[in-house]
């Protein structure tokens, strides 16, 4: 059941260029599935008016973590919030990644803050699934951003465009040539990255992508998050944010 809970900021820490981890303490709403997201209300005033969609990065009981990048007004204001301040959190929203099987080989491809839901996934299935993680950033981020991937993956590769971290370049330059060995490929990140990744995969059915679209509500009433799917119009907030590779089209 979707709830609106009040989170008190435990920390709101800069972990990279424009990238922050926000930790909130709030009522424990119970199980949240990997890939689900929350709508955060940034201000008590009515400007900005809408909530901001954010994937769960991690959850420990009543501690909720988000990994976010400052891109506009809302996230800029968020980045100035301090310990003790309260933020209203609407969650859990959306569908989730498919259930992973014991010992399955799963390729994880993440770009930038798109790693947030993937981090939740990896934490959720740690030690049960064989993760092969490839994540890229544009520049340096602190280890706490990717430490879970590092700890819970069979293979862990990280890259950055300015070579401040791991290999130099976009992460797609480093993923395995042969993708046949993976039972699932799960990815989240810039739309361009997802599009290129999809081209590399023959069997679209094993790919799961978490998409982003501008959202007014996050729970299906405003119809602003529509994206064209293979057979029908999809609404990212309720049909997604996770879509199977067979459903998505890239051509806008």
């Amino acid at each position, binding site marked *: 059941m979707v709830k609106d809970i009040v989170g008190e900021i435990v920390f709101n820490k800069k972990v990279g260029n424009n990238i922050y981890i926000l930790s909130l303490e709030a009522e424990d709403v119970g199980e949240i599935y990997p890939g689900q997201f929350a709508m955060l209300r940034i201000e008590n005033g*009515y400007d900005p008016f809408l909530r901001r969609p954010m994937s769960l990065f991690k959850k420990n009981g009543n501690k909720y973590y988000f990994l976010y990048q400052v891109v506009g007004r809302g996230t800029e204001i968020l980045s100035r919030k301090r310990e003790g301040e309260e933020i209203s959190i609407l969650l859990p929203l959306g569908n989730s990644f498919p259930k992973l099987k014991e010992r399955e080989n799963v390729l994880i491809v993440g770009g930038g803050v798109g790693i947030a839901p993937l981090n939740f996934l990896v934490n959720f299935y740690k030690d049960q699934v064989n993760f092969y993680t490839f994540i890229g950033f544009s520049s340096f981020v602190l280890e706490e951003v990717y430490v879970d991937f590092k700890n819970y993956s069979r293979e862990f590769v990280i890259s950055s465009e300015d070579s401040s971290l791991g290999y130099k370049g976009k992460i797609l330059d480093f993923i395995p040539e042969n993708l046949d060995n993976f039972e699932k490929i799960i990815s989240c990140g810039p739309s361009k990255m997802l599009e290129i990744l999809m081209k590399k995969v023959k069997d679209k059915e094993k790919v799961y992508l978490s998409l982003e679209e501008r959202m007014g509500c996050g729970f299906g009433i405003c*119809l602003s*998050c529509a994206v064209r799917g293979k057979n029908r119009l999809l609404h990212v907030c309720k049909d997604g944010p996770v879509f199977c590779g067979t459903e998505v089209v890239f051509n806008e």
Partner: protein
Amino acid sequence: MSKVQVKVGSLTFKNPILLASGTCGNGKEINKFYNINILGGFVTKSITINPREGNPNPRIWESYAGILNSIGLENAGLDKFLEEEIPFLEKLNTNVIVSIAGEKKEEYYEIARVLRECKISGIEINLSCPNVEGGGMLFGIDSEMVKEITKNVVNIVDKPVWVKLTPQAKDIIGVAKAVRSAGGEAVVVFNTFLGLAIDWKKREPVFKRIFAGYSGPAIKPIVLRYVWELYEENILPIVGCGGIVNFTDVLEYIFAGASLVQIGSANFRDPWIGEKIVKEVQNYFKEEKVVDLIGIAHKNHEEVDK
């Protein structure tokens, strides 16, 4: 009689709080958050004869304390509405107003003919749509057009008909009079304002269709002004809609002359807002009746002047 009950035309509302068209889905979605039967009523997403995919992205954009939307009337069309929504709607124990829209006059009538058979409380005519036969002008701008469509729908549907006005109309009073003379039971004031946002990074309009509908707290003082003016003219009951985000906004609307209010964009920010405000209304009106305070600010102001 309950202190918060309000009659508008032939309909009785258990309280003056409704949710606005396009901001509460078709009821089911909000019903997940609370029992929507607690509401005075709600208005469904505008339906059209044929399914509509709506406009290309982006469809929503934020401005200061307001939002611009260009959804483009995405909806599954009348048939799907009858099949998938009506059964749920007919079982509800609150007023369900079905919003209808079209690109041609005839489309309004076609929908009305079909809805005649449904167990719904009434119809809200959404006239903020471009009239493809009339050069793309919004139906709601022209009093004659408003009168014609309203009259025909009233005749066909055999249920209360409300007309939702567009603030783009130059003569709001004239349009409201047209609704009255055509047999409409109330005017809903307003649909969204026409607004523009420029994406300064791309140096082009944010929306593919350039203009979009502006709503949210930002528009409240302007809408409230028209509610006041319409109340002074005493034409028809007024359903206030625009920028309501909390209970005191509702009071402002009622005191200015609205018999009922609709909550729109605020549902996006807080899905429980309808329920919260209903409770606040019940709390506030313990001694006094809502109906006795509709338009009270007009009386109080005159008294001050004397």
